């Protein structure tokens, strides 16, 4: 009898397993349209790094059996660094490929119109990398969410860092600090620059020049001439890749000097590229960005996140052969991971599926405390009715500084890994 009981139990267990796996096999895959710039100027400015990282996250999720039994079926689309292509690809993915949601997007110039279009169609979008506050500000979006830092925070971080360290490091009271703000004139650059201007002026700093330019401009020398005339102590710059290197090259040739140069993500997040182009001249550049996860002390994060970061770094290096892992890798991976491990399971379990309505409700329930993601920040979205509804209210950037090709955190002071080198040391090519 006992033997028979055991046999029944084994049979039942086997049947249960079989049923379970059949259910898992039978579960529809979740189709996700992943849009990044795989070609064109943005690709080398961080979009490809984020795209590779998003794919790594999807692969890892699928290796674990998917989400609640559903495998992730990603359709990767190339926006070609062109806004019109990005919008067309989003339309194709939603209407022809019938994807369940759109994910990714590097450029804010693509993100702003795409978010409105997707939201108007009552479809779901999870933005990974684009930062412009204009994506959400005053738009009252309901189906678009972003855990990523937004541009107002970029602008705020650099000025707050200067406000805290100017007197001590530069010997200049913040109210006497001469600051110039230059930026590419898309939503990303303009958004960060507005944040810069508002915060720096709020601290009483003297904004001696604020100017935008096209990231495709073949020449920036008249702006460099004006900067020389304005004599700023610190330059706050937001740009993509070709324009940043053009600016640095023309600044050197035209004798523009400064005490500190603070970049804000995108091209400034690519230290290996800057080092290749400028060698030692790229030393001591600051960069405001969401932190590259591998720079954080795993002990400050929730258990297991350190290992997750190590796995991401390992796979990214194997995939790309890169030595330096830029912040965009963490952005692409982290936002995807948050969606796949927090929002999507809740949508399926609590709201019965992964249609836009279920995903929206699940996203609004998100409540990850600080330290709960690989980039350190927590996640809770501004609710509907708020000016920034859909944007993560717990996101935060850091200020980093590049020294001899190594990335170091210098602000917030609580998590800094080195003391900032400020002003530029004597003898540096750009030292004032």
């Amino acid at each position: 009898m006992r033997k028979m009981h055991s046999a029944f139990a084994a049979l039942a267990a086997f049947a249960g397993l079989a049923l379970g796996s059949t259910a898992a096999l039978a579960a529809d895959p979740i189709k996700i349209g992943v849009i990044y710039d795989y070609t064109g100027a943005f690709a080398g400015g961080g979009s490809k790094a984020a795209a590779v990282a998003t794919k790594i996250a999807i692969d890892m999720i699928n290796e674990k059996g998917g989400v609640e039994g559903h495998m992730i079926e990603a359709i990767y689309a190339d926006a070609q660094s062109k806004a019109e292509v990005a919008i067309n690809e989003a339309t194709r993915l939603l209407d022809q490929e019938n994807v369940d949601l759109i994910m990714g997007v590097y450029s804010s110039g693509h993100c702003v119109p795409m978010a409105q279009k997707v939201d108007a169609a009552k479809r779901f979008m999870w933005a990974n990398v684009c930062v412009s506050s204009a994506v959400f500000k005053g738009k009252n979006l309901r189906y678009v969410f972003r855990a990523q830092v937004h541009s107002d925070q970029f602008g705020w971080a650099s000025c707050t860092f200067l406000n805290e360290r100017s007197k001590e490091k530069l010997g200049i009271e913040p109210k006497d600090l001469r600051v110039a703000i230059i930026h590419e004139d898309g939503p990303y650059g303009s958004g960060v620059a507005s944040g810069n201007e508002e915060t720096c002026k709020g601290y009483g700093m003297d904004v001696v020049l604020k100017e935008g330019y096209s990231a495709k401009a073949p020449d920036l020398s008249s702006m460099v001439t004006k900067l020389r005339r304005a004599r700023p102590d610190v330059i706050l710059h937001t740009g993509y890749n070709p324009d940043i290197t053009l600016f640095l090259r023309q600044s050197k040739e035209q004798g523009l000097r400064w005490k500190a140069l603070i970049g804000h993500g995108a091209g400034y997040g690519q230290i290996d590229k800057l080092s290749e182009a400028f060698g030692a001249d790229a030393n001591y550049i600051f960069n405001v960005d969401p932190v590259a996860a591998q720079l954080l002390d795993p002990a400050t994060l929730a258990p297991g996140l350190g290992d997750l970061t190590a796995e991401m770094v390992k796979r990214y290096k194997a995939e790309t052969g890169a030595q330096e892992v830029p912040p965009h890798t963490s952005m692409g991976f982290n936002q995807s991971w948050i969606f796949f491990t927090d929002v999507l399971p809740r949508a399926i379990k609590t709201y019965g599926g992964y249609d836009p309505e279920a995903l929206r409700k699940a996203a609004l329930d998100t409540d990850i405390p600080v330290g709960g993601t690989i980039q350190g920040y927590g996640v809770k979205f501004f609710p509907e009715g708020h000016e920034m509804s859909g944007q993560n209210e717990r996101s935060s950037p850091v200020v980093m500084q590049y020294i001899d090709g190594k990335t170091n955190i210098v602000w917030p002071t609580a998590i800094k890994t080195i003391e900032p080198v400020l002003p530029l040391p004597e003898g540096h090519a750009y030292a004032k």
Partner: protein
Amino acid sequence: MIDIFLLEAILNGILLGGVLALLALGLNIVFGVIDVVWICYAELIMFGMYGNYVLHKDLGWPLLLAFAVCVVVVAVLGVLLHWLVIRPVLGGAPINQLLVTGGVLTFMQALATLVFGIEFRNLGISMPSLELGEIFLSQSRIWACGVSLVAVALLWLFLKKTYLGTAIRAISQDREIMPLMGVKPGRIYLITSAIGGGLAGLAACLLVLQYDVHPAIGLTFGPITFMVCVMGGLGNLLGGFLAAFIFAQFIQVGGFYFELEWGYVFAFCFFIAMMFWRPQGLLGKRA
């Protein structure tokens, strides 16, 4: 009292004008003789820049040797472009010629992406600046401007003083009659394509000292080069040369007094006004 910074902007405008003039030179001579616009001209320059990168940075060739080889290679590319792509549609409608070179543009961008990837590459060469009191001028720009002037002068001498140059000018003046006089247009077209390609290669050598190269670099120069050529009178070498310097001054001085982008707005407004006033271009002749 002269504003020293304004003076610097004007001088930088002259140097930028030299760069634009060199870019326009090759495109103009090809149009002037063959009557076809190489929409993919900036992509030839892009390949020349990649060539310099590979030869100098990857293979360690001396820079001047890399330059010389790249000029020749891009000249050959120009010949191939004519032989393989332009020649079959020479008798076709102008729109077909435009479309086919537009197709080559897309092909070259995609090919560059496949072969070289999406990374930004540069030679890592930093040339010192020329200091004149408070004025700083880029040496790489001075070289580009100087070479541009020399190239225009040499091309002018070649067209005026040599038999081949005379034949090229003759073909550009009347493509139908000259073959009756014994000039072989096919040969002249090939030589012109080689010259156009060689000038693109020369531009590549000078631009690679100032810019990163990536598959989309052509988009930075292509439209502006085309506008300079149209403003000067498509096919008119001297007109293109003059237009380049006027265009550059609008960009520089406009960008100095107002925001940088306004410089381009003024330049484009001037271009539009010119199209109403002299649709044939600054020095072009009415058809």
